């Protein structure tokens, strides 16, 4: 288990990429069994979530309520499977629980529920509320006089269409000195939503420019370039104002049949699609493993 507490043992870029693939396979399995849920939304965010949970976030799975931990808020709550996969892989709850997704009597709800699932910081699922919730967490960190502690909020295109997100964006800057500076908003800008492309449905345009206009420290990166993700996330630590990382992503990333394509939102894979997706991801995993061993061997010599 890679520790995110010890910088010495922090996984490198290649290893993070591998974990992202592992999380993707978990999502495919979960959704195939649940026969319900948002697969492509989860795959889109896999690289970002892997970078956070395996490297950037300071958290302790053995002590989910550790007071000094960073917080992760999944504003796009419908991508719950990717969060559940990351939590299970870190031991917040048994991996086997993933197979109970969306079933009656099980704790893994369709959308994250802080009252049921260890490691879920706040319940989400109604778009547009996550950034305000994250700001509240950040303000509380200042009130508690905490040192370098941060809140990472993962948002979607739909989140950015909700007016409340821009109320939060305004307030985060206004309250920068009182906690707002602790906020990192990550936009999973995959240009697809329920009814079509964002350009067709409701174009949100230049997200980097919009956050910048609201006073945020704002960058735009390729949301599947692991080195860029890690760099951008790590650069926000210690910032004196809230930071936005606009990630250009592809919905369904890693599964060729859905990647970047409209028509899969909220649709679970059929058994055949799931098998095909798993074969593709397992092949990817094998090549990532081989690559990792090569780099490790290279380091030894």
């Amino acid at each position, binding site marked *: 288990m890679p520790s995110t507490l010890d910088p010495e043992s922090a996984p490198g870029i290649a290893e993070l990429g591998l974990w992202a693939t592992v999380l993707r396979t978990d999502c495919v399995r979960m959704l195939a069994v649940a026969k319900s849920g948002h697969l492509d939304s989860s795959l889109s965010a896999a690289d970002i979530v892997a970078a956070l949970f395996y490297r950037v976030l300071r958290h302790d799975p053995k002590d989910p309520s550790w007071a000094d931990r960073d917080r992760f808020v999944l504003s796009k709550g419908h991508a719950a499977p990717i969060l559940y996969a990351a939590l299970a892989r870190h031991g917040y709850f048994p991996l086997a629980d993933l197979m109970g997704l969306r079933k009656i009597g099980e704790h893994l709800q369709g959308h994250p529920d802080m009252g049921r699932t260890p490691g879920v910081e706040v319940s989400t699922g*109604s778009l547009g509320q996550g950034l305000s919730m994250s700001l509240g967490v950040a303000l509380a960190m200042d009130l508690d006089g905490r040192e370098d502690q941060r809140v990472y909020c993962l948002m979607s295109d739909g989140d950015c269409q909700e007016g409340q997100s821009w109320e939060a964006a305004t307030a985060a800057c206004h309250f920068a000195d009182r906690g707002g500076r602790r906020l990192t908003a990550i936009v999973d800008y995959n240009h697809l939503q329920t009814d079509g492309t964002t350009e067709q449905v*409701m174009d949100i345009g230049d997200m980097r420019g919009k956050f910048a206009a609201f006073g945020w420290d704002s960058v735009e990166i390729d949301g599947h370039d692991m080195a860029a993700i890690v760099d951008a996330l790590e650069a926000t630590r210690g910032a004196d104002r809230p930071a936005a990382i606009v990630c250009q992503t592809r919905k369904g990333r890693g599964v060729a049949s859905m990647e970047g394509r409209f028509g899969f939102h909220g649709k679970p894979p059929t058994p055949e699609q799931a098998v095909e997706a798993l074969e593709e991801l397992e092949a990817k995993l094998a090549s990532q493993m081989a690559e990792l061993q090569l780099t490790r061997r290279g380091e030894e010599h």
Partner: protein
Amino acid sequence: MAGSGEPSATRNAYGAALLELGRDHAEVVALDADLSVSTQSAKFGAEFPDRFFNVGAAEANMMSIACGLAATGKRPYCSTFAIFATGRAYDQVRLGIAHNELPVRIAASHGGVSLGEDGASHQMIEDIALMRAMPRMQVIVPADYNQAYRVTLDSYTDDAPQYLRFGRPATPVVYDEVPAEIGDGADVLREGSDVSLIACGHMVWRALEAADRLQSEDGVSAEVVNVCVIKPIDSQTVLDSIAKTGVAVTAEEHRIVGGLSDAVRQVAAERHPVPIFAVGMGDEFGVSGTGEACMEHFGLTARGIADRAREALLLKPIVSHPPLHRPDWI
């Protein structure tokens, strides 16, 4: 397609009837918030793209835009999930639509817990209460596809703001064809003499099934009343039924606070008090599971209704002979 004997979702009837309205009336416009396939407004959007506005995930914006359209002579139909139509946009609906008494139709799909797997965040169980409390807002909960088709068509001719609640799952029909009218809003679907089962929405076909059970298992004759218009409620039909049977069970896919049960209880309390038991959601949120598993989990079933009716019937002999005056030995 109008009229069908097959199980179908009430939201499908909305989509089909909205399309018909669009063909007949140029001032009908439709709005949605990135859920147009789920709510079925996409059918209208495909045929009338120039009269369709998808605002993205921005429900508050949608309601206030609808206010502006209606204030300028259009007849807007706004669709999204019940949770977002009422919860997210309450103030926008309140001031812009209800207070101004504008003919905006809020077509709220995925009401209740039967939407299933999405879980508590999406399962709206207090929308009827919220919309009933709002001045000038009518609240309409059709029982099946055919009735949903009728209420959507009829909404055009009414000038009041309306909240229309539709559901996600396909459910059996209780009307063999699209009814000719909604009348005063409540229908006696089955006559009976021992107990009134007063239901709305997805609970109506279950109430009919409960009546069958009560008849065959207990020899009890249950009357089934479908209350489609919850506000303003058809108090005469409700009163006639409870005066006849002397005891009632209400059934709704909603909190037992503020919805159908309270509407019926208010009528009864003032004009003909009888014991009224409620089937619905207690002080709790929904959970993830299949739609049917969720209904089962919260007792929103024919068995749940029949069991409550049995409890209510136990009370009947006691309360039907109340001491009307002080006994003279006191």
